[in-house]
C-alpha cells in the first residue's frame, strides 16, 4: 500500500483552499528568487542600489547597467520561463498520459526537440536565403518545436491504445525515440563545421548562461504561448484522469483537448530546449512534489508548477554559478543531481503505478 499520510488532516477532502495558499506562497518565492538572482554574480552589482541610483536621478555606470540589464535580467527571465515551461509541460504530459512518470526529458520529447534544434543549427544554412532571413532567429526554436511535436505524437500513438497508456511501452518507446534522435543528432554533429560545433557544444550542455535578449525574443513568445494555453487544459486533464470515455461523458471534447495538450507540450519543450539545451528532471520533480502537497487538481497544479519550476530553475542556476566560481557548472548537471534521486524515490514509492 502506498503511504499517504496527508489523508488524516483533511476530513472534507477538499484541498483547493490549501492549494490557493500554496500558490500565494509560490508567488512570493518566485519574486524573491528573481530578485536574488539579479543580485548573484561574479561582479558585485546590487540591483537595489542601481535602482535607487536610477530613481534618484543619479548617473548609473555603464558597466553596472550592462551587467544588470544585458546579462542578469535576460538570464533571470530565461531561467524563469524555461523552468516554468519545463514544469508545466511535464505536468500536462503526465495528465495526458495519466502517469506521473511521463516527463519530456525521460520519454524522448526533449531528445526530439534537440534533434530539431541541431538540424536547424547545422542545416539552417542550406535553406534558400530568402526563407532563412524570414525565419531568422525563430528558426531554431521552431525546428525544436517541430521535433518535440513529432516525438510527442509518435510516443502517444505507440503507447496509447483506446485511451489507456501502457507505462512500460511509453518508457521503452521513449528510450527508442531518444536513441533514434540521438543517432540522427550525432550524424548531424559529424557533418557540422567548426563554428557550428562550437554552437552545438555550448547549446548541448544545458545552460542558460548564454541568455541574451535576442535568444529570449525568439523563444519567449512560444514558451509564453504554452504557459497561457496550459490553464485551458486543466479541467480536461482532471476529467481525463478518469479515462477518455469518462471525460467525454463529462462534456470534454477529448480529441481536441488531447491535440491541444500535445501541441502545448511540444511548444514549451521545443522552445525551452532551443534556448537552454537539455535540462532534465524539472518536469517530473516539480509536479510530483506539488501533487504531494496540494493534490492532483490541474486547475491549481498547472499554475503552481509554473511558479515552482521557474524558481527552482533559477535556484539551480544560482548554484551552478556559485559552486565552481569563477567558472560555471552547466545547469543540467545541477538539476540532474537533484532530480535523479527524486525520480528514483518516486519509482520506489510508487511501484504499483509503474505496473499500471
Amino acid at each position, binding site marked *: 500500500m*502506498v503511504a*499517504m499520510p496527508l*489523508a*488524516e488532516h483533511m476530513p472534507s477532502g477538499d484541498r483547493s483552499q490549501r492549494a490557493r495558499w500554496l500558490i500565494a506562497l509560490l508567488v512570493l518565492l518566485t519574486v524573491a528568487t528573481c530578485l536574488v538572482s539579479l543580485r548573484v554574480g561574479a561582479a558585485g552589482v546590487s540591483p537595489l542600489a542601481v535602482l535607487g541610483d536610477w530613481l534618484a536621478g543619479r548617473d548609473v555606470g555603464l558597466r553596472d547597467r550592462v551587467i544588470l540589464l544585458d546579462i542578469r535580467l535576460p538570464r533571470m527571465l530565461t531561467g524563469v520561463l524555461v523552468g516554468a515551461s519545463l514544469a508545466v509541460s511535464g505536468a500536462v504530459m503526465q495528465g495526458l498520459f495519466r502517469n506521473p512518470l511521463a516527463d519530456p526529458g525521460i520519454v524522448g520529447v526533449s531528445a526530439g526537440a534537440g534533434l530539431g534544434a541541431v538540424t536547424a543549427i547545422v542545416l539552417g544554412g542550406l535553406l534558400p536565403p530568402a526563407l532563412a532571413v524570414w525565419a531568422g532567429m525563430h528558426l531554431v526554436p521552431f525546428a525544436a518545436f517541430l521535433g518535440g511535436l513529432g516525438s510527442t505524437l509518435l510516443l502517444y500513438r505507440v503507447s496509447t491504445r483506446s485511451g489507456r497508456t501502457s507505462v512500460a511501452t511509453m518508457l521503452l518507446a521513449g528510450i527508442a525515440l531518444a536513441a533514434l534522435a540521438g543517432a540522427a543528432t550525432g550524424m548531424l554533429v559529424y557533418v557540422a563545421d567548426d563554428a557550428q560545433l562550437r554552437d552545438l557544444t555550448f547549446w548541448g550542455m544545458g545552460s542558460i548562461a548564454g541568455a541574451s535578449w535576442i535568444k529570449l525574443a525568439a523563444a519567449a513568445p512560444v514558451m509564453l504561448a504554452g504557459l497561457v494555453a496550459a490553464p485551458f487544459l486543466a479541467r480536461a486533464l482532471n476529467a481525463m*484522469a478518469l*479515462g477518455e470515455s*469518462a471525460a*467525454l*461523458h463529462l462534456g470534454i471534447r477529448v480529441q481536441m483537448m488531447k491535440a491541444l495538450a500535445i501541441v502545448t507540450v511540444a511548444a514549451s519543450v521545443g522552445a525551452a530546449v532551443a534556448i537552454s539545451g537539455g535540462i532534465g528532471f524539472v518536469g517530473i520533480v516539480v509536479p510530483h512534489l506539488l501533487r504531494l502537497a496540494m493534490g492532483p487538481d490541474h486547475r491549481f497544479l498547472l499554475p503552481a508548477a509554473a511558479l515552482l519550476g521557474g524558481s527552482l530553475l533559477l535556484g539551480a542556476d544560482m548554484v551552478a554559478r556559485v559552486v565552481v566560481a569563477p567558472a560555471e557548472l552547466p545547469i543540467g548537471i545541477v538539476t540532474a543531481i537533484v532530480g535523479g534521486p527524486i525520480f528514483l524515490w518516486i519509482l520506489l514509492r510508487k511501484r504499483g503505478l509503474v505496473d499500471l
Partner: protein
Amino acid sequence: MITATDIRVVLNRRPILHGIDLTAEAGQMTCIVGPNGSGKTTLMRAMTGEVDYSGAVSLDGAELKSFSPAHLAERRAVLPQATPMAFPFTVFEVVRLGLTGREALVPNAAQLPHLALAAVGLQGYEGRFFQQLSGGEQQRAHLARVLVQVWHPVQDQRARWLFLDEPVSSLDIGHQLQIMRLARDFARRGGGVIAVMHDLNLTAMFADKVCLLAEGRKLADGPPARVFADDILSTAYGCALRVSTPPPDGGVFILPQAAA
C-alpha cells in the same frame, strides 16, 4: 425518451450487434440483460456515443450525434463498469469531477458532493484517497460522481438520464438494494435510467422494462413478468431455467435450483 433504431456495431471487423431496437422512457428503469458477450455493454456504449454504430440513437427526438459533448453531459451521466483513476484524488475530489465545467452554474455546488456521497452510503469518506477504497466503495464513489452530474432528474422540464453499466456488480446485497432503490427513485422523480444488469432477480425486482439480448440480437423486451419466461430465458442463457413467483406480491424470481 431515448430511442435506438437498428443499432449495428462492428468491433475489430467482428459484428457485435446485429440491428437492435430499444426504446427507453423517462420515469422508468430500463434494464438490459443477457449472457456474457451478448452485447449489453456494447449496446450501452453505442447509446452513449462511445463506440461507432450504424443506425440511429435519438434523445427526445434529436439525433444523439447532433449534441455537443457539453450539452450531452448536461442531459445524461454515464457510469462505466470500472474506472481506474490516475493520480491520488480524494473521494471528494473524484465526486466533484461530476461538476466539471459547471461548478459556477450549479447553485449548491459545494454541498452536492457531500449529499451524493451520503446517498450512496459513503458519508465520512470525503478525505480518503480513492485508491485506498475497496472495489465496491470505488464503484459507489463513481456512482456519487455520476449522480452529482445529473443531480436533479428533471431540469428545464426535460428528463435527465443515468446510464449505469453493471452498477451493483461488486456490491454486497445490502448495498445492491440501496443502489437499485436509488436508481429507481431517480426514475420515479422523472429521470430516465438505463442499466446493464447481470442479476436477474434484482432486475425483476426493480426494472420497469427489460431488454433481453443474446448473441447481439434482441430476444425480447417488455415488463419483467413477460420477458422472464422459462422458454425465453432458457434459450437466451443456454441452460434450463425456471421462473417462479413468490406468494406475497406476485413478482417473478429465477431460482437455478428449481430448473428441471
